[in-house]
């Protein structure tokens, strides 16, 4: 197996599906978490590279979805790789992942708004019913409604489930000013999906020891595994 190292910030953002895939797949990796000072030091050297980065046997690669697709080919849960080998099944996963990944885009410009009130107001606009982020979440909710198994696609855990789970939990974390934790409570399939994924034993184990505050909503609401 290749030597893998993931480099990203502490919070569960764009690297989270990658870390989770490796975690649930039982694949050893070095989780290089960047604190503010480490990032300041790194910035001039890696510019214009964006995080997350994956190091594979010494070679550094960027682009979160590309990295994710790679690790999901390596990671298996109950014998099934998280990324399908069949071209049409892979197409369905890629389609949904691209849709889910787009969900963060409207939020990105708000990081640069310095005034807290203005930033919260802008985010509230995105989250209102019919706003770009709410609409995105409602669409994903609609896709999940089509599933009989509760998994997003193919009646098994795939990269698409990890994306939906981590992105929804990120929005629900309560750590984004202006985005309340109950923002998606009206979307029942999204809520059920979050519970389902959080309760998967390998997922439960992965989040069990995470103490960083933003991870609270990623944990199963059932008793933790010890």
């Amino acid at each position, binding site marked *: 197996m290749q030597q893998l190292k993931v480099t990203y910030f502490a919070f569960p953002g764009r690297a989270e599906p990658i870390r989770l895939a490796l975690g649930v797949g039982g694949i050893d990796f070095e989780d290089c978490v960047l604190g503010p000072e480490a990032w300041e030091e790194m910035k001039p050297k890696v510019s214009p590279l964006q995080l997350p980065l994956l190091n594979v046997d010494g070679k550094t*690669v960027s682009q979160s979805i*590309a990295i994710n697709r*790679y690790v999901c*080919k390596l990671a298996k849960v109950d014998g099934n790789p998280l990324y399908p080998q069949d071209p*049409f099944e892979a*197409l*369905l996963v890629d389609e949904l992942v691209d*849709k889910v990944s787009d969900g963060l885009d409207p939020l990105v410009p708000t990081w640069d708004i310095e005034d807290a009130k203005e930033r919260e107001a802008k985010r509230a606009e995105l989250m209102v019913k019919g706003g770009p982020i709410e609409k995105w979440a409602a669409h994903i909710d609609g896709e999940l409604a089509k599933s009989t198994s509760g998994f997003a696609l193919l009646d098994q855990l795939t990269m698409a489930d990890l994306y939906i789970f981590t992105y929804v939990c990120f929005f629900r974390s309560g750590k984004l000013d202006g985005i309340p934790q109950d923002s998606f409570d009206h979307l029942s399939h999204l809520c059920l999906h979050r519970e389902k994924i959080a309760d998967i034993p390998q997922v439960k184990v992965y989040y069990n020891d995470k103490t960083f505050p933003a991870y609270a909503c990623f944990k199963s609401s059932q008793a933790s595994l010890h």
Partner: protein
Amino acid sequence: MPQLKLIYFPIPVRAEPARLALAVGGIQFEDSTVQFQDWGEMKARVDPLQLPLLEVDGKTVSQSMAIARYACRLAKLGGKPLYPEDPYQALLVDELVDKVGDFMAPIGATFMLEQKEKEAKRAEIVAKGGAVEKWVANIDSVLAESKSGFAVGDSLTMADLVVFLCVNGLRSGTMDGIPKDCLDHLAHIEKHRVTIANIPQVQNYYKDKEGPLYAPFKA
């Protein structure tokens, strides 16, 4: 082989990597074009659908890069699929494809601007060291290192098609503020463009395509 129908406007842009892959691989597909005047009516019926769409044995799928990747899995040149089966090689292809998508996004944003501002913004991002030029220059240096002349590995991949599309879009002269010669100083980019354009299946695909958007793709 599944029954394939690709639905898009009669321009290269978002459907071209898939169309090219299918053409290179000699895979039959229905190239279904929607005229711009008909799109408004269609959009009212099928929101939130965005083009391109691919119908695979009657099942409709969206997302241009997902569609292109699928087409590249099916299509082979010289016996090698355009999307590598080896996960690490595929990672390198995906990385380059996504990088191109990222750095070309600011150009998409300029279409909304008022004329003077549009031209000024575009001129800035394609000037030497500008947001787009520096990334294309980066790909130029990757190509310089390539023994095969291809962007990743030793055969044609989705990465080559995406670079080819990006470069020809910038060279088309159809975007005010972006001069046709904006990439002429990048020798390996030009060499790559010529290599891809001269692949017989690519040459054949563009043979009957007319108009300024398609002209730069011809050998």
